[in-house]
């Protein structure tokens, strides 16, 4: 690791001031991506501003028709929270499938969303549930937030504070994890909510995306058969030593069917 100065922010205001004062600073939450990146010397920040323990970024609560989760909430907290399990069990299940127990004990919702790894799990839920990402400056709709591989609508100095998920009538997440890393080779979040039926796919392409053809087909006929033979563009799929484009597209379709069956089994 290159040298840096570590500063533990005592408040969101202080974190904002620190990040504004040091243009080469980076925000640190759970550090599950940032620390490995620093260890490989792929980043050289002047300062690390630790926002992991900020009280403004914590908490899980239901507010009206939404489930609101603080950005510094760790995956294990979401996975084990009675509030999440009752209001949005598919999200608790998703959180319990991220990485491994040690990663879930450190990694945070805000970190995962802000990093927007193309194989991260949370972005699929954020997009399928039409969530709102609340930052220290504004509110960003999920559809505008994710902008492709590791890219988001976040500006310099913008800090994710919380995410507001619309509570669906029912939802489910299914993923095929890479056997070594646990990252999704393809992960599909399906949700039936006020905004209709949504299908979001992570892991398969350069970034999370909605499978609009599937949403339309399922709106007409809510059954796994409706996904059979539907077009799913392979050209944007990832191809690497683990899987070809065609394989990933097929995997995404299979995960979508499984997620749908799981969702339809709920009342």
């Amino acid at each position, binding site marked *: 690791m290159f040298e840096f100065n570590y500063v533990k922010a005592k408040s969101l205001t202080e974190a904002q001031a620190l990040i504004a004062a040091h243009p080469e600073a980076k925000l*640190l939450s759970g*550090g599950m991506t940032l620390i490995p990146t620093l260890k490989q010397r792929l980043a050289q920040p002047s300062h690390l501003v630790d926002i992991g323990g900020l009280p403004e970024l914590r908490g899980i609560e239901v507010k009206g028709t939404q489930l609101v989760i603080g950005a510094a909430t760790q995956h294990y907290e979401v996975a084990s929270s009675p509030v999440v399990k009752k209001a949005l069990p598919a999200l608790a299940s998703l959180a319990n499938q991220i990485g*491994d127990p040690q*990663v879930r*004990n450190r990694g945070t919702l805000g970190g995962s969303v802000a990093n927007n790894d193309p194989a991260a799990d949370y972005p699929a839920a954020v997009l399928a549930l039409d969530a709102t990402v609340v930052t220290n400056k504004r509110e960003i709709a999920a559809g505008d937030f994710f902008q492709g591989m590791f890219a988001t609508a976040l500006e310099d100095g913008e800090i994710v504070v919380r995410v507001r998920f619309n509570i669906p009538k029912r939802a489910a997440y299914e993923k095929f994890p890479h056997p*070594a890393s646990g990252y999704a080779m393809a992960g599909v979040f399906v949700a039936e909510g006020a905004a209709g039926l949504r299908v979001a796919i992570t892991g398969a392409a350069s970034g999370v995306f909605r499978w609009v053809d599937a949403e339309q087909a399922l709106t007409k006929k809510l059954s796994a058969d409706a996904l059979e033979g539907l077009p799913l563009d392979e050209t944007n799929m990832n191809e690497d030593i683990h899987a070809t484009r065609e394989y990933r597209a097929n995997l995404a379709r299979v995960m979508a069917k499984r997620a749908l069956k799981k969702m339809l089994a709920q009342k």
Partner: protein
Amino acid sequence: MTKIELTVNGTKQSREVEDRALLVDVLRDQLQLTGTHIGCDTSQCGCCTVHVNGRAIKSCTMLAVQAGGADIVTIEGLAKGEKLHPVQQAFTDCHALQCGFCTPGMIMAITALLKDNPQPTDEEIYHGLEGNLCRCTGYINIVKAVKRSAELMK
């Protein structure tokens, strides 16, 4: 450099550390607690697992400064004098190790797992040990040891 205070295995410690120092390096090099191993150093293998405020974490992927004020337990903190911790005893009883390199991390992950879930099923054990790799036993005896631990801890 930053001065940090930690409680490690029940003892208060105060150390000057580099901001970029990893928790595992401070435990091993400054506190001489070499039971915590560095395996892959890329947060895959789990050999460096310790408890921070009661939760299992990989100490190769946490800065020592992030652990300031925390309560840390390492493998050295489990046995009570000559009496092994039930998970350590179960590893002995079930022959759950060959080379032993992954064992400290396995045991720290298992003690944390059993705290959350005292009677895990096979599936829950596999899921709970996803963050730990063993390259010699093939896990069968490790899973047996988890079940034996659960019995010993009843």
